[in-house]
């Protein structure tokens, strides 16, 4: 094979092992903690089937092997089965990340036949009332039925519940529900504050006491049920002193495509200013991964500022999350302010202190001073107009 100066350079990045396709922004749910961009309504048309299939072939040829199919709700696309079938044929491990809405037996049968490996089903809370409130829909019973269907088709059942101030006190009930549904794995994923969740951060950020209580409850539960149900608890990074090694460093293993084909090094990166992100309609996955500014800018550590640049831990956490650095400090090259070595760490501790205030301790369902803004086409357009007016 001929030498390729683009990809054979010394220290060249490894392959994009993880490919996440956000097939659509359409979603029957309206979760207030969604990480999708708040301006998704302005997004361009979704890629067609042929483009998605080409992307799969190109990424697989580079070495991509884990495939996430997400959105929005990926089941709103009626070519999902075709996409799964091609991915399976190419040797991807295929993960469907779904709210369950739209997953009936006919589609599940077809997806299984197409070679779908795995389904991650989201719940918003343990009770119908809270689930339906938090997703701004009536979907709880439907999701329960889908969970049974997933078991029936012999998939390992992975439930994902995003935790935040309004449901974190229900961890025990959430885990009981998961056990009753026969879940093999439960991910209690604390909200990460991007997109809609960022917009609603003041309403969603739990107090430190809530987080600690939830973690104790989770540990007790884990001891009780043993190996039959594995529980993952993702600690909210606002309560940590060191940042998460976000995406293992931008451009190291992770490649996301948004519904219109824009390629991003993480699902939130579109917000980063001054970066051109290529689109699969005009560039190959290889050009995008190895040759684009959007993917190269935050590779390695030459972009780092102090305190990261001279920090012995930079090889472990890569300075944390670029999007969080940008959202909180206005500069994506700053240290993630979750780190207590960051001169901006007070921005995180102040947000947590506000969440700890007793006055905000018992928010009624969305009846706080500032209402929760649910993810919807209409709110997306409204928020966008507001931002343009500023």
């Amino acid at each position, binding site marked *: 094979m001929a030498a390729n100066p683009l990809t054979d350079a010394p220290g060249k990045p490894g*392959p994009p*092992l993880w490919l996440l396709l956000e097939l659509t922004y359409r979603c029957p749910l309206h979760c207030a903690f969604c990480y999708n961009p708040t301006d998704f309504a302005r997004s361009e048309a979704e890629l067609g089937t042929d483009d998605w299939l080409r992307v799969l072939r190109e990424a697989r040829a*580079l*070495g991509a*092997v*884990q495939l*996430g199919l997400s959105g929005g709700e990926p089941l709103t696309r009626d070519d999902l089965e075709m996409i799964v079938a091609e991915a399976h044929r190419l*040797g991807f*491990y295929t*993960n469907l990340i779904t709210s369950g809405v739209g997953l009936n037996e006919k589609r599940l049968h077809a997806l299984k036949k197409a070679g779908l*490996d*795995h389904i*991650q089903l989201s719940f918003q809370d343990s009770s119908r009332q809270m689930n339906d409130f938090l997703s701004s829909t009536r979907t709880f019973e439907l999701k329960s039925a889908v969970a049974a269907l997933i078991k029936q088709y012999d998939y*390992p059942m*992975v439930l994902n519940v995003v935790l935040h101030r309004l449901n974190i006190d229900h961890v025990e009930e959430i885990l009981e529900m998961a056990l009753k549904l026969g879940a*093999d*794995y439960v991910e209690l994923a604390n909200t990460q504050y991007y997109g809609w969740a960022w917009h609603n951060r003041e309403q969603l950020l739990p107090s430190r006491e809530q987080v600690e209580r939830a973690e104790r409850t989770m540990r007790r539960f884990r001891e*009780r*049920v*043993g*190996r*039959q149900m594995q529980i993952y608890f993702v600690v909210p990074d606002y309560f940590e002193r060191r940042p998460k090694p976000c995406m293992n460093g931008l451009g190291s293993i992770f490649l996301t495509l948004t519904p219109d084909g824009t390629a991003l090094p993480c699902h939130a990166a579109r917000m980063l200013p001054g970066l051109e992100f290529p689109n699969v309609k005009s560039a190959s996955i290889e050009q995008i991964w190895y040759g684009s500014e959007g993917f190269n800018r935050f590779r390695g550590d030459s972009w780092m500022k102090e305190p990261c640049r001279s920090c012995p831990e930079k090889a472990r956490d890569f300075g944390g999350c670029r999007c969080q650095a940008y959202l909180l400090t206005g500069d994506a090259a700053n240290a993630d302010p979750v780190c207590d070595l960051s001169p901006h760490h007070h921005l995180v501790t102040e947000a947590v202190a506000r969440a700890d205030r007793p006055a905000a301790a018992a928010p009624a369902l969305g009846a706080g001073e500032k209402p929760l803004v649910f993810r919807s086409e209409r709110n997306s357009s409204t928020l966008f107009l507001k931002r343009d007016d500023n």
Partner: protein
Amino acid sequence: MSVPPDAAPHAAIDAASRPAIGRGFRLQWEAAQNAFVLLYPEGMIKLNGSAGEIMKRCDGATRIADITADLERAFAASGLSGDVIRFVIMAVEKKWLQIR
């Protein structure tokens, strides 16, 4: 109410056991990584050379004794049985393998 703890998962593993790839895992050769990998929901384990060689022989029908003999033949080695059983025990604990 408490659930009784699982019996030690490796209590019954010996040379006659027939390990298979664990439920929910898929073993696959990845040329881009020059390695066998174990794929599972939203994750991947890159196996080192010997782990890959053992696991690709775990088809649920072949006994550990025969897997060992095959490895010893393929790599002109001897005395691998302890290593293979130890690996299988570890892999069963991690659910990478299961004994049918």
